[in-house]
């Protein structure tokens, strides 16, 4: 019997079957030791801050309604715990089997998106994006679709012939065809924000995959043209208004510009040091709609000031930076492309979300990763972090 031997860098559990739990945990090759702890801590810090902000944003409303003021805070934490469990799975699952799961994840998200458009779907805040389940659970399939297209694209683009360093045109076309289905379904909801996130994921993954410039440039050009020519005809009235109102929120303070105006007032009045947690007058006065979800950054701006808001931006920056580092250090194309996709996703969503509260981006209804309240987004975000960790644990420089 041939003993293939156990690789030297295999986890201790494989090398020594009698190793204790403590020894395994502290082993150089154990998943805990191989985690990107900087990334992990930044994510945990964002979740921690986010839960406080969600608490503060919902506290007064719950008190007014005679409900538990901490209920959103608790639910946010529960979401985070479930999300972290999902992240563990995503980080520990075998790389190769991940590729096998990709079609399943992709297919499931597409089914979810179709279900949204069926009578099962529900409209919340003007977007037909949710499936409401019993016991107060809601699923937003578009969030999972982001994970699906990241993994799906990486899988296709990483399957290269030996001689080829970059994807062929046919690979790019297959990828575009692959993402067109979920994007089209999301466009029908319509959830413009998620579609734009996906466009950026496609751009990021294609760019890093080494696809020819014409594809990258062509996609950017197509996106701009679509926004300029098609969008005004296809988009709903409220979507156009949201898009144009950010330029001049004072034009119609009680209409579409109301959110941006109130968001700016809340953040601006926070000053350098903020009014203190739970002390935000605009927050407690409930002047900002959707504050625990899309506008959660305004709570930070008002109550924690420039110091707190800046810290959040730097933490998000840390996540992105570590993501790019993981992409750079990845040993194979699949890992690199997954990391690139996740970074594109978080980068775009963070910039658009914070930018919208600061009045430099239109209101698109995108949540802020890890901070905004919402289960589906939290799960999807943490699954993406799990994927980053998975890639990291298998990178060569460890």
């Amino acid at each position: 019997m041939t003993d293939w031997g156990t690789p030297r860098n295999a986890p201790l559990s494989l090398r020594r079957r009698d190793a204790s739990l403590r020894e395994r945990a502290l082993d150089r090759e154990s998943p805990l030791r191989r985690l990107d702890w900087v990334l992990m801590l930044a994510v945990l810090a964002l979740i921690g801050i986010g839960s406080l902000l969600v608490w503060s944003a919902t506290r007064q409303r719950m008190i007014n309604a005679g409900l538990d003021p901490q209920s959103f805070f608790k639910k946010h934490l529960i979401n985070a715990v479930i999300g972290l469990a999902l992240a563990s799975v995503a980080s520990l699952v075998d790389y190769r089997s991940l590729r096998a799961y990709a079609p399943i994840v992709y297919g499931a998200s597409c089914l979810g998106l179709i279900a949204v458009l069926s009578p099962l779907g529900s409209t919340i805040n003007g977007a037909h994006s949710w499936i409401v389940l019993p016991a107060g659970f809601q699923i937003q399939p578009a969030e999972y679709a982001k994970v699906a297209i990241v993994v799906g694209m990486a899988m296709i683009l990483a399957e290269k012939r030996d001689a080829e360093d970059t994807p062929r045109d046919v690979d790019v076309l297959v990828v575009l065809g692959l993402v067109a289905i979920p994007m089209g379904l999301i466009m029908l909801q319509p959830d413009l924000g998620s579609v734009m996130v996906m466009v950026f994921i496609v751009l990021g993954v294609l760019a890093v995959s080494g696809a020819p410039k014409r594809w990258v440039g062509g996609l950017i050009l197509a996106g701009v043209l679509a926004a300029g020519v098609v969008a005004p005809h296809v988009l709903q009235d409220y979507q156009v208004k949201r898009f144009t109102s950010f330029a001049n929120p004072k034009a119609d303070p009680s209409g579409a510009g109301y959110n941006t105006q109130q968001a700016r007032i809340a953040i601006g009045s926070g000053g350098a040091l903020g009014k203190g947690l739970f002390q935000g007058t605009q927050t407690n006065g409930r002047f900002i709609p959707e504050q625990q979800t899309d506008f959660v950054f305004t709570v930070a701006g008002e109550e924690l000031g420039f110091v707190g808001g800046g810290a959040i931006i730097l933490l998000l920056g840390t996540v992105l930076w570590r993501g790019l580092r993981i992409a750079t250090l990845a040993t194979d194309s699949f890992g690199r492309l997954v990391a690139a996709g996740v970074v594109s996703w978080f980068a775009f969503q963070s910039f658009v979300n914070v930018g919208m509260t600061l009045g430099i981006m239109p209101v698109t209804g995108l949540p802020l990763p890890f901070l905004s309240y919402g289960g589906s987004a939290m799960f999807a975000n943490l699954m993406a972090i799990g994927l980053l960790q998975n890639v990291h644990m298998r990178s060569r420089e460890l």
Partner: protein
Amino acid sequence: MSNRSRLRLIVMRVLVVSVLATLLGRLWFLQVYAGETYTQAAMDNRVRSVVEPARRGQIYDSSGVPLVVNRNAMVVSVNKSLLRQEKDRGKAVLARLSAVVNLPVDEIIRLTTGCGARLPDGTLAKSPNCWNGSPYQPVPVKAYTAEDPAQMKVVLAIEEHREDFPGVTAELQPVRDYPDKTLAAHLLGYLGPISDAERKQPQYANALNTAKVGRSGVEETYDAALRGIDGKQQLVVDKDGNVTSQQSAVPPKAGDALVLSLDKGVQKLAEDALQRWIMNARGTYDRVSGKNYLAPSGSVVVMEAQTGRIAAMASYPSYDPSIFSKPITQKTYDALVDQKNGAPLYSNATQGTFPPGSTFKLVSTVAAAAAGNSLNGSFSCPPSLMLGNQKFGNFEGEAFGTIDMRTTLVKSCDTVYYKLAYNEWQRDGGLSTKGPAREIFPATAREFGFGTPTGVDLPSDSAGSIVSRASKIANYKRYKDDYCAGAKNPTYDAYRRAIDAENCVDGALYKGGEAALFAIGQGDVNSTPLQLASAYAALANGGTLYAPRVAKALLSADGTKVTPIPPAVKSKLSTPPGVLDYIRSALQGVTLPGGTAQAAYAGFPHNIVPVAGKTGTADIQGKQPVSWFASFAPANAPRYVVVAMVTQGGTGGTTAAPITREIYDGMYGLEGKAALLKNGELPSALPVVRPDGTLGPPGTKTGRPAPTVVMPASPSPVPSPSGQGSSASGPLPAAEPARRTSVQPRT
């Protein structure tokens, strides 16, 4: 990894860093650079001010009898900015409202149009028949008293059908009420909405844009104290307007109660006497004009001689100030200012200027003495006198031969005064003035307060006019063109054209005839009844000219503070006391047999209350004479000055003097009348604030410690009451005094 991939990852890093830098920069700009702007915006966002209006102080007479009180009325208001949002800009709503409140649509539009804005017919809306307040406030269009049976119907029609009346409200509002209707209306005044321009003035600094402020009388003068300070709550609200907390609260400070020196009984007595004798004059035939006396208007002033305080001040005709508590219609307002009705809105006591006639001989006698004439000398009283080429006669050509000064005053011999004044005019150089003229007569008149406002604590206070060389030149410069045009104006009668032609040539010259007429209070001498009363008070009290005072004290609403309003000395006369003594003594003879007022005072108990006075019968070209009587009593120790005046009312002795007699009778309880004043005195103590906030007569027990007396910060001798010469007072009934020219006098 391909180089291309590596390069693109580096590009991504650059993009991420620049995106983060952008966010941080923008965050810094909003929070640190522009943070203060947003802090203010956050305040505006969530802090709402709620105003609790202060209760306006009520107004009382010197014994604590209320003259002006607060009452609730149902007021129907229109909010124009809400109305404009209607599809038809509110036309249908106004039509419905018109039917409910029984007012034409045009009238509602007129009431709600801002003053100075254009009405639908293109004309400009003029005060006060337009909305003088803030354009963002609901405008009252109709008010109903609690007793009005229509009130309930209107409220139901509007409040039960809110959807038919967007922008229309019907709610209870405090309004001023005048229990005695027309009594002392000119002195009390009324309220009107504050204008945006007024809110910028310091005395209205704390007034809200909904405030109603005094528009006339003591309501205007003491507006700030009466108005009080509105309470303000700063409430923190959430986005739905729910109150989450209270940031600050300042309770309203009710306005002070205003106590006047006025006695309601004496005021009523004066008004009744004035009206009765005006009616009497209207039934009396005037031989000169060949018809009954018109007697359209008149006035009475009762002043405390030793303090200048007003005990009563009547002006006929009067009006009910409560008409200003409701939106006023154009017709009503027109009637108030129509000269044909005697212009009830104007106070004849303080705004009406008339030649004082022989009552002015007080000034002339003092001037003659100052010019060096001995009062103990004898004077020739011929029936007429030739001065230059003009003949000046006595009233009805009377002549008394050579008489002393006392008889001159008692008989009111004009020719003596013509001569005295003419001599002085000649001494000053006559027509060709060389060097500075003494001008003793105009100077003395000025010393007695003629030609300048009295300084009374009322917003309307006319200066009247006196003639001097300087004023002639000034007037000539101003009116020369008018004179010259008037000389050729075919619509003027021959007399007026002749006068204008003369003035066109030498209107700047102070002629001997004018100096002579000046001495008998004719020509271009004009005085208000209040000015004359002040001058006689100075005579009566031995030489102190007071700025008259209507108000006596302000009492804080809780009764803890008293702010007395002290008498205000305007100036001291330079006249030697002996001269004043002489005149006082001489004027006693006027009401006695042989005097010009003997008929009016026949049978009067002179032994109880001796009355001294001077009649005046002043001519105005083309009109019947003004009847005057200026008096004081008791003549030996004067306490009151009573001046009565009736325009086109006949001689001083027949119409004005009997009014003063009725007033003395009532005040002192003479000739079978009940005495209105105890010991002939007005109460010296102030009324007191009862625990329930109402006022009680002086001496009422309150169970509280005596209030703190707050002396006014700077008791200036002539305070300038707020809103001097207020625009709301309008033009004066006596126009262009400088252009008036008299004919032969009759006194």
